[in-house]
């Protein structure tokens, strides 16, 4: 098991939280209701905090002196390793919450497994993060249920969001060489083994939300491998990295 694979794996964890945290932070000040402004800021805050831990460890393991900030602020899109789901645009509030719930449900299962990682640093980060994410998924699940089983319009919008985002679920569970190496080394779980729990969790929330999971297992891929992100990530980075790019070497 090479450090390179571990580095890749940690970038996946950290880029997921970085990119999704950024997306959520785009809602600042314009949520549908004040309580949501607060809750979304809180979620973004947790995700950015987790990013600091994952990318910090990634930089340490890489051993080239790169900090979490270096990794976040100076890699171009092709070096990002987040799943495609995380970088999808916010759309309306329903689409944002559907994206959040689908990610949270995977994230919770993943972090729970990672608390049993044979790498204690990984296990410790997971143990901290899992407490926050347990709360995230409860909230996003409740919102999906509330809006799915709300008015005709809210139901329609939530079904559209589910239809749009479902093809991005598969990537989170389809292992590649990095995932295989992690599983073999006991650092991370076998992703395929997380799927049944996810399906039953998501299935029951969607049932309560009166929403229908699309009958397709087509999966967009290319985010976590970095081979082919969507066009959205590059635009996000123009903002996220602006200051560090424009004023390199400054300290903030």
């Amino acid at each position, binding site marked *: 098991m090479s450090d390179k694979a571990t580095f890749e794996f940690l970038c996946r964890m950290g880029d997921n939280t970085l990119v999704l945290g950024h997306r959520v932070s785009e809602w600042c000040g*314009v949520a549908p209701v004040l*309580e949501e402004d607060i809750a979304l800021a*809180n979620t973004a*805050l947790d995700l950015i905090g987790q990013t600091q831990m994952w990318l910090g460890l990634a930089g340490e393991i890489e051993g080239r002196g790169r900090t*979490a900030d270096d990794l976040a602020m100076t890699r171009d899109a092709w070096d990002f390793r987040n799943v495609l789901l995380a970088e999808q645009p916010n759309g309306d509030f329903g689409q944002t919450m559907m994206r959040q719930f689908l990610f949270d449900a995977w994230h919770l299962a993943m972090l729970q497994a990672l608390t049993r990682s044979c790498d204690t640093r990984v296990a410790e980060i997971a143990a901290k993060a899992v407490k926050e994410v347990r709360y995230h998924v409860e909230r996003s699940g409740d919102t999906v249920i509330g*809006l799915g089983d709300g008015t005709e319009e809210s139901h329609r919008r939530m079904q559209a969001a589910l239809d749009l985002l479902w093809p991005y679920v598969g990537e989170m569970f389809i292992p590649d060489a990095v995932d295989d190496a992690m599983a073999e080394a006991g650092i991370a779980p076998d992703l395929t083994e997380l799927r049944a729990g996810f399906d039953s969790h998501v299935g029951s929330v969607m049932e309560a939300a009166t929403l229908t999971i699309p009958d397709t297992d087509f999966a967009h891929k290319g985010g976590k491998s970095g081979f082919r992100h969507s066009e959205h990530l590059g635009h996000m980075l123009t*903002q996220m990295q602006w200051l560090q790019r424009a004023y390199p070497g400054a*300290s*903030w």
Partner: protein
Amino acid sequence: EPQERAFQERINAGEKIEPKDWMPAGYRKNLIRQIGQHAHSEIVGQLPEGNWITRAPTLERKAILLAKVQDEAGHGLYLYCAAETLGVSRDELTEDLLSGKMKYSSIFNYPTLTWADMGAVGWLVDGAAIMNQVPLQRTSYGPYARAMVRICKEESFHQRQGYDIMMKMAQGTPAQKRMAQDALNRFWYPSLMMFGPSDADSVHSAQSMAWKIKMNTNDELRQKFVDQTVPQAEYLGLTVPDETLEWNDDKGGYDFAEPDWSEFFDVIKGNGPCNVERLAARNKAWDDGKWVREGLLAHAEKRASKKVAAE
């Protein structure tokens, strides 16, 4: 009117007025206006800082800024709750904000143009806000006073964070220093305006002070702000954009130039650099969120009626 006299005596004695107590209509009306404007300021105040959340230079700075904006939304919530105890709902107040009938602090009609503005907003804008708010912890209306206690604690934290950003910038590269000075240049006079025009020109002042919903004159607070801020600017190595600024030994404070009050009244009238955008952003958020609020309400009603049916 003996009721009014008794009310004024309670206030003079330093008693707190509570929601169920009798109060003059004018007291209620003035409080609703003042608390509502303050709440709206917290809400609209999210926007100029939100403008830089997606461009924060480090993960740490992004987290700090997110936490700050989250606090502001929380302050809005406390204040709307305090206003609700006076018999006006959050939705009513929101509609009045969105229609332009109610105001918010005019400072938020200025744009945030560089990262140093995140420092200047914390240092100067929150600094001026605290100057206004600290005395309001002793205001006569109980729910308002208690909300201010919570708010002031967090605001002074924000102010220190803002000053910390300015410090980093002022000690940074030449470009960062220039950003810091530029931010001070743009925010100095708008910050002085936050205390309002001289009390001589202010309509509501005398009665509000008697009722203890205003604790100091605008000019007193402005002077205090200048006296506190000038040494901080000097410590940062920045120049306050006022050539007339000078220490006055006699009054034990600084002499300083008045802001351009015609600009202030322009901003109040809706002609500030960002008035249109700020209101448009809040209106869009409210309109876009209608289906969400309705959806969640419909779901809550379904659940409630299911629960009743099951009992």
